[in-house]
């Protein structure tokens, strides 16, 4: 069954960002405040695309030194060693513990890169007004947002190691500059995911297929759900 559903914005309504109350705004340009919780109403996050782009680009820039600079300087018995993320992966792989290597590779290299690519893809499709795959893109967005909090794994490991391995004359570990950039990548992509307004995806693709199973029970499903929440 194919039906076209309207968004709140098309209906001239705005859902409150904070308490999800569906309201009639004063006007679309100056929507005013939520009558229930007093939060400022906005139909779409202002400058969402621009902000997200800026953060994604900043994250991309930081991603390069994050991978090229050492994240950890290990000094053991007089010999010091600087490890980059990729160097660590290779070291783990060559020393036989490929499951660990895989974890580090996924968590520290592929996930940040994937997030950057995913955000860029979302931004481009929204800007181009691509209509199809709206549901998939939304899922992608949700995934990006969800995974963001887990990407700091590498930074945590680094800080823990640095704090614990301080046996000064014998062995010490110091953070490298790379970890700062890595943390910057993670924080910037998390911020980018927050500033991106997923509703924009739906703005471009107004016509969607609603599968009967996926469709909620109540008839004016989207509206009702929002107002009840």
């Amino acid at each position, binding site marked *: 069954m194919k039906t076209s559903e309207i968004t709140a914005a098309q209906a001239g309504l705005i859902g409150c960002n904070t308490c999800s109350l569906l309201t009639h705004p004063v006007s679309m*340009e100056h929507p005013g405040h939520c009558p229930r919780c007093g939060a400022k109403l906005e139909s779409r996050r*202002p*400058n969402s695309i*621009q*902000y997200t782009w*800026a*953060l994604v*680009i*900043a*994250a991309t*820039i*930081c991603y*390069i*030194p994050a991978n090229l*600079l050492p994240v950890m300087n290990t000094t053991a*018995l*007089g*010999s010091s*060693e*600087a490890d980059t993320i990729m160097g660590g992966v290779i070291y783990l792989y060559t020393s036989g513990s490929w499951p660990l290597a895989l974890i580090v590779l996924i968590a520290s290299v592929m996930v940040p890169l994937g997030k950057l690519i995913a955000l860029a893809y979302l931004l481009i499709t929204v800007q181009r007004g691509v209509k199809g795959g709206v549901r998939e893109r939304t899922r992608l967005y949700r995934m990006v947002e969800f995974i963001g909090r887990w990407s700091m794994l590498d930074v945590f490991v680094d800080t823990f190691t640095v704090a614990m391995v301080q046996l000064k004359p014998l062995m010490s570990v110091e953070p490298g*500059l790379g970890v700062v*950039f890595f943390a*910057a990548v993670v924080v*910037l992509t998390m911020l980018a995911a927050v500033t991106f307004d997923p509703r924009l995806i739906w703005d471009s693709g107004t016509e969607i297929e609603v599968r009967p199973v996926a469709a909620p029970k109540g008839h004016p499903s989207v509206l009702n759900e929002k107002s009840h929440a």
Partner: protein
Amino acid sequence: MPESTLHAELPRATLVTKKHRRISVIWLIPILAAVVALGIAVQRILSEGPTITIILKAAQGIEAGKTFIKYKDVNIGQVTAVQLSDDYSKVKVTAKITKSAAGLIVEDAQFWVVAPRITLSGVSGLGTLLSGNYIGFGVGKSSRAQREFAGLDVPPAVADGQHGIQLTLKAAKLGSLGIGAPVYYRSLEAGEVTGYNLAADGQSIEVNLFVRAPYDKFVNAETRFWNVSGMNVSLGADGVQLHTESLVAIIAGGLAFDTPSFADGAGPPTGSTVFSLFDDQASAMKKPEANSQHFVLYFHESLRGLSVGAPVTLLGLPGGEVTDVGLDIDPKTQALRGRVEIVAYPDRLIGRLGEQQLAIGQTLAESNQERHAFFDHLVEQMGMRAQLQSGSLITGQLFVALDFFPDVKKAQIDWNLTKPEIPSIPSPLPNLEAKLGSILTKLDSVQYEAIGADLRKLLNSSDQVMQDIDQALIHFDKSITPEMKIAIEAFRKATLSANKMMQSTDAALLSPDAPVQQELRDAMQEITRTARALRVLTDYLERHPESLLRGKPEEKN
């Protein structure tokens, strides 16, 4: 509604939408990130030093990214790649040098692998046991930059930046000297042997050594070097003496040098000065003799124990040495005799004259004639003669002694011969054997028979004495024995009565119910009890020593 129509006629205000397309502040974030990242990149590129390649025989513990190049223990570079050379025979090590050290990478710079090395003369590179091997760096003097180097197989013996001089010695044989063998100056380690090689003609060894500052200034063109390898045991009048420079020198060999006092003024050695290596200090420090006089001596006795180099003494002071020991046929008598050639150094003896006689010594040293005349006087008037004397009874070493024998036959020195003869006299005790022989001869001449006869006479007379004693005893037996019998009878009676008395006393003392026994037993028991009480007391005191001061505490219950 009229009002509404009225209002409707009024023009509507147009809403000018604010331009949201304006560049947002958010773009500062990527710009900032770009600036920081670019800054780091630029700094990296600017601080980039030259990349060099070092060709090594083997990559002993060298790893890319882990091995450093160190100069004076400061990292000046890091190995970035280790590969085999194109023909697979060597190892090509690529290293990145820090920019600050780029100026050091010149033509004659040296690179070598620093690994732990244990040699006889010491252990080096111990630090690398923990830190891993690294590449050592020796500074070059050239100013022309170079990027490809051949690494040294062994670390250079002379550490970089050390001041000192390189010297070359000529030696007949190397002995136990090895690379790294220490060079001593007055028992201080002043340098080391850096290398050796056979001379081009194959007849000698050239030993290269390095003398460190500040010891290098004690080396001049006249400096003597000698071998101090092993140890030198000497047996003298003051006991056994053991000379060694150091334990290292015993094992690894070593050299020592000094400048003799007579050569203090010599100039510094030039690059081409080749020193000779002496066997020992004595020969090294020997003054070159200005005056030397050869003599020949003839002896009619065994020359066994006399060797070339044995000292010639005058009144016990060394004044020369034996240069040859051989045979000679006396032209007059056709007899075979021992020939000993000696060289005398008159200066040595003249140098021993007292201060007041320096002037006399001076004339003797300078004028051959004066010296000959003096020698003539010694031989003719004073009776100076050469004599073989034993230096040691154990080893039987002989030396030539010039001593004075006023009552010998007159003799003269013929100075016209190339080797004038000094008259000799036989030694008083040529050797121990002769001495023993004479003792045996003396023993031989003892009159054993006469001694035997005397002994027999003595025994005969003692036999007579024994017979006399026998007779006296028989007489004694006859006259004294009856009286003795009576006396013994009386003694027996006395003993019997004494025995009786003892028995009654026994009854009083020793029977179980005897009062003495009873009292004794009581007394013993009393003593036992006392002892027990004492033990209790001491036990208590041991546990409560304070009771000595405070008394026994009251029992609580």
